[in-house]
């Protein structure tokens, strides 16, 4: 059962990855190129200024060409990421289905899982530490920036798990609606406090084009929406169908589901 779910999740992730890659290729890459053009212009200006002072800068050799980064590299990164998230999604679903609530069908559980997943894993961590195009961010601070980003993500996921537990505990006494509102409020307050306490990072160069930054972040957000929506809806639809087929079989043949 878990094996089936895991394979299904990874296949849905693979499909999601193709869609995300298509979007990233068409909409995201031009922003990356603009950012790199800005970076190159800054580097050239620096080399010229240093040469005038008699210093000769060494250019780092290019390990992977831009066309490869923007095609096979992007495809690989997105596919690995999506497939891995598909697998993780399936494992969480295997645990959550039937436990979140005794009255939600598999596709509803999958959709709710995708919604809470994107909020906990991407939206909230990115409200504090937004996605940045190349040339935004000092190479020297990569260590601390990575630590802070993953800490924010881990605390956000922990708060979401806490909210889910809280919702389930409160539901029998206060009803599902109030329980869901309490749980949402709990999550929002916890992540707001965490975000307020964590140190800010602002390394956007003063003259970096704001429009490029905005488009880059919107495209990054859209890629996540495409991935999580595909995971939640396709995985949910397939699992719902499989559950129907099983129930139908138990009730006596393939017509069982329709008769019930």
């Amino acid at each position, binding site marked *: 059962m878990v094996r089936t779910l895991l394979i299904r999740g990874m296949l849905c992730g693979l499909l999601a990855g193709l869609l995300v890659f298509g979007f990233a290729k068409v909409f*995201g890459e031009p922003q990356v190129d603009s950012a790199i053009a800005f970076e190159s212009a800054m580097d050239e200006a620096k080399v010229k200024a240093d040469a005038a002072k008699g210093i000769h800068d060494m250019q780092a050799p290019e390990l992977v060409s831009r066309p490869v980064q923007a095609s096979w590299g992007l495809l690989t990164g997105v596919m*690995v990421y999506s497939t891995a998230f598909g*697998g993780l999604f399936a494992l969480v679903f295997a645990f959550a289905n039937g436990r979140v609530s005794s009255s939600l069908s598999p596709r509803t559980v999958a959709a709710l899982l995708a919604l809470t997943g994107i909020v906990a894993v991407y939206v909230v961590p990115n409200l504090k530490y937004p996605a940045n195009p190349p040339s935004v961010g000092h190479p020297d601070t990569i260590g601390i920036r990575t630590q802070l980003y993953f800490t924010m993500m881990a605390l956000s996921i922990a708060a979401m798990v806490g909210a889910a537990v809280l919702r389930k505990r409160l539901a029998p006494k206060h009803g599902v609606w109030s329980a869901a509102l309490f749980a949402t409020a709990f999550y929002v307050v916890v992540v707001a406090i965490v975000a307020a306490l964590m140190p800010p990072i602002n390394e956007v160069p003063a003259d970096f084009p704001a429009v490029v930054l905005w488009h880059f972040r919107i495209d990054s957000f859209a890629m996540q929406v495409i991935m999580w929506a595909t995971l939640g809806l396709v995985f949910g639809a397939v699992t719902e169908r499989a559950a129907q087929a099983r129930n139908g079989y138990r009730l006596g043949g393939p017509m069982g589901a329709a008769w019930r």
Partner: protein
Amino acid sequence: MSNTTIGSDIGTDIASAPIPVREVLPWLIFGLVMLLAIYFVGAEEGATSIIKGMYVHEFVHDGRHLLGFPCH
């Protein structure tokens, strides 16, 4: 044919019985594999490094930026 179509449109609206925890647990090892895969896309040869050199970082560079991970 029409009956099954109606069935799938309405959905079951009935929760499946939960899978016992002891059945789910062994599969969590795959969860670790997934996390390692995400690590390679998101952070390898940036903040930390398992493999020497910068090839993995440079290869997945665009994806890393667009997927929201901190990069150089």
